[in-house]
Every structure is written in C-alpha cells, then in structure tokens.
C-alpha cells in the first residue's frame, strides 16, 4: 500500500487535531490544500499567523480582542453598573447578537466541574470580584449554561458575591434546560435577559 508523502501526512495529522475534524475530513482538507492555488494557502497561512499573533484575551473582561482593554470595556456608552457573566467568549457574542444587553461582560473561562478538576481558583472569579468596586457594579447577571455544572456555578457565585452588596441575578427560565446559550435563539435569549431573576 502506498502511503501519503511525509509532509502531506503531517498536514493531515495537524488538521486532525482541530475540534470536530475526524481523520477522514483531515485527509480530505489536506489533499485539497496541497492542490489548491498557492495563493489560497498563502492567504490561509498568513491569516492564521496574524490572527494567532494579534488575538489575546482582554485582561479586564476575558473577551477575545486585539487591543487592551477590548472595545466593549472601553466603550463609554455601555452601562458599567451591570455586568453579565458568561462561560466562554463565544457566549458573549451570542448575547451581543441578541442586541438586548447594554452593560459590560465578564468571561469566567469555564464552570465548576469537580469531575474535570475545575475548581473556583481555575475560573476568573477573583478578577470578577476585583472589578465590582472600582467599576461601581450594582448588578451581576449570570448567563451560564443550564446544566448541572452551570447551575451549581450560579449557586456558588451567588454565595460568594453575597457579602459584596451587589444584586446577583440569572437569566429567566425558558432557555433549553441542560444546554448552553448556543441552543437558544436570539428572541429567547433577549426574553431571558429581560426577565432575569435573583438567584435563590
């Protein structure tokens, strides 16, 4: 059996490390790329390098950005008294798309997960606490997934933030139970935001 040339084999292996790409797709992509116009692979390669080099996480909110702090954190028109806590940077984009939130954000970077060894110290909770006073935050809206770990993280945050004198709320019910924000459409999401309730 003839095997792939070494460089092609390596390309396939790297592509296969990407999420959602199985061995067969990886091979198909690799074969496509080595036969595509050189100009395309050139653009792809430089786009990859540039993006990887310039994209960083905002040191204030944890969103993906090219500048420090990010545009959302520096936008004076945003309401700094309301902070929306999300699990991942992509959740922030989902809420922005719904167009129904005018406050600022804080990306937690995960949720409590004892089974995966994720403890409070592994999340950006201290950073969150440090923002409350200086930014004059009055309400923290928790927009975390509705699965067990997301809900437990909400309970945890509500307890931890209680002595800080901020109102802690979470999205109203109506989001798909057990899922992340990506399962909710924009209308559902803006309704859930509008109907947010104090965490019990």
């Amino acid at each position, binding site marked *: 059996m003839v095997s792939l040339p070494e460089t092609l084999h390596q390309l396939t292996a790297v592509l296969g490390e990407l999420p959602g790409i199985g061995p067969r797709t990886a091979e198909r992509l690799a074969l496509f790329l080595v036969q595509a116009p050189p100009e395309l692979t050139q653009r792809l390669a430089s786009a990859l390098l540039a993006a990887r080099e310039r994209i960083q996480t905002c040191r204030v909110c944890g969103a993906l950005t090219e500048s420090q702090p990010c545009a959302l954190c520096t936008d004076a028109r945003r309401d700094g008294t309301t902070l929306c806590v999300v699990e991942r940077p992509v959740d922030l984009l989902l809420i922005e798309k719904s167009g129904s939130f005018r406050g600022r954000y804080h990306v937690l970077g995960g949720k*409590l*997960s*004892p*089974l995966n060894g994720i*403890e*409070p110290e592994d999340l950006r909770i201290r950073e969150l606490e440090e923002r409350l006073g200086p930014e004059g935050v009055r309400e923290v809206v928790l927009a975390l997934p509705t*699965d*067990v*770990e997301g*809900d*437990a*993280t*909400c*309970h*945890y945050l509500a*307890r*931890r933030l209680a002595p800080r004198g901020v109102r802690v709320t979470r999205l109203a019910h109506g989001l798909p*139970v*057990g899922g992340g924000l990506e399962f909710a459409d924009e209308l559902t999401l803006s309704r859930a935001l509008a109907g947010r309730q104090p965490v019990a």
Partner: protein
Amino acid sequence: MHLAHLRLRDFRNYARLDADFGPGFHLLLGGNAQGKTNLLEAIYLLATLRSFRGVGGAQMVRHGAAGYFVGARVLAAGTSDIRLYWSPTARSLTLNQRPVRRLTEYLGTLRAVVFCTEDLQLVKGPAARRRRFLDLLLTQAHPGYLSVLQRYLQALRARNALLKARTPDPAALAGFTAELVAAGNEIMRQRRELVPRLSALTRLAYRRIAHDAEEVRLDYAPSVKAHFAEELNRAAERERALRLTLLGPHRDELRILLDERPAAQFASEGQKRTLAIAFKMAQAEYLTGLHGIPPVLLLDDVMGELDASRRAGLLPLLERAHHASGQVFMTCTEEQWPAELGRRLQRWQVRAGTLRPLPATSEG
C-alpha cells in the same frame, strides 16, 4: 400500539430479517440458540435503546460484521418509522427520517415490557435492581423523568468528586448540593406517587396468577425521611469522613412484602417467580392506564417456569392485552404450550437467525 414491521441487519445471529407482524399474539417457536431471545432483544432495544441483557452495542453486532441495524414501523395513534444503526465508530437514530436529538422526544414511540428469567432478581437481588425498575417505568410513563434522573446522577457524581478532595470547598459543595436536592426531591416525588399505584396493580396481578391468599404490598422506603437538604446537612461530617454522598434517591429501597414479611427472605421460589411476573404485569397495566394503549409485551422463557395453575392464571392477563389491540411476543422451545391460548395466535418458526410463519393450528 403494535410493531408492524421489523428489519434487522447484522443483529446478533440475524444477517437479514424483514418481517411483518399484526396486532395480537405471536408465538416464537424454535430450539435452543436459534435466535428467539435475540428477536425480543431487538424489539426491546427499539423501545428503550438498551438491551434487556444489560450488554453494550458491540455484543449485538453479528460476529464479523461492522455494525448492526434495527429498524421498525410502529403503529399507534400514527405511524412511526424508526431506524437505529450502531457500530463502534458511528451510531444514528432517526424517527420518521429525522435524527433524534433528545431522548425525551423519542422514548414513548414504542413502549415494551419484557418478562424474562432475570426478573427474579427484582425480588431477590439488590435494591439497585428495583430502583432501575422504577426509573425505567417512570421514564416510560413520563419521558421528562429521564432528564431529571440524569441531572441527579451528574450532581451526585460531581458532589462525590468534591467529597473526595482533601478539603472540599464548602461553597462549591453547597452549589452542587443545591442541584442534588432539587433533582432528588423531584425524583422522590415521582417515585412516591407511583409506588402505591404499582402496589395495588401488583397485588391484583399476583392474586390472578397465584390464586393465593397472600397479600402483596410494595412499600417505598426513601433514604431521605422528610427534608433532603437538612438531612444532608446533618450528615455532613459522616459524608466528609466517608467521602461519599450518603443520602438521596440513589439509596432508596422498594420493599416487597408478602403478608407483611420481606419477600426476598420469606417467599418460596415459586412465589418469587410469580411476584416477578406480577411486577411486570403491573408495569404493563400501569402504562396501559396512563396512555390508554397497552405496551408491547415480550415474554422470554417465562411460561416454562410456572406450574399449570399459574400459567392458567397468567393467560387471561395476556389475552386482555391483545384484545385491546395490543401485541404480545412469546418465546417457546417446544410446542407443548399453550393450546389453551386459543386459535387466534400467529406461530413463527425461528431457526438459525431466520423467521418463518407457521400455518394456523388446527387442534382445538
């Protein structure tokens, strides 16, 4: 509800099978190791997505084949087309040509109750068997129960992982405790509601089959006495010492009493067998009452274990099922059984992974 068509590809010892079934009573006849139980297993798999033999997908793939396919057409209020494919690297489940995203949307398409020799463990075995029975029945009754159960198990596993840590973070533990309590209370509520009804139905079925004077009673004995959160609070120290969640629905017991004495210790073997069947009959009756249509009954090797008088007691119960446009599949090694069943039954010959209809019986 009935299974109108069954299609198997590379499932156990069936390379290819396409068979049509009407409502009513189907008797699967054949020698040992011909594929009778395998057929029931396939039907049960469609209903619950599990094997009643408690095995995983790999064992059901025909030796040497890449994967199995089990498909069916089910007639209830409407027609449902089910296709299930499993291989070690790929699996798919479609309902009416659309992929099934959530199990709760699928479960209930085909409801089945299986009677098999392992049922004896319901009476003799550990409490986990009886909890699984309750959970399966509640899932068949209300598919939403499964989501709550899964949440509970996730919270339980997370909580146990926290308790294993040298110094569990109390606030994190409280977060998962809140989840455990919320899901746990809902599970207990549903179990508490179900058991008295199940108890009455089991007693009735037992009486019909056994013609005995003993009274059967099922008693729900939750490990939480009154207030889940408070009792967990009181157990906190012991939990930290043992590094385990000590209270909750995962520790519930369903007591089976025969004349108020624990059946596992005091019932005779014959009484235990009868109890196991009565349990399953009660499951079927409960589902029939709830949904207005009887589930498909799958009986594997059950008759051989009963004496003539108990068989005679069970028969009318089975016949009831097929009068109500239900469907019964029953396996049998020899045709010693059951002339009493009457003529309205379809007989099938099972031989080495093939199925052939037999002509109607002529004996009276």
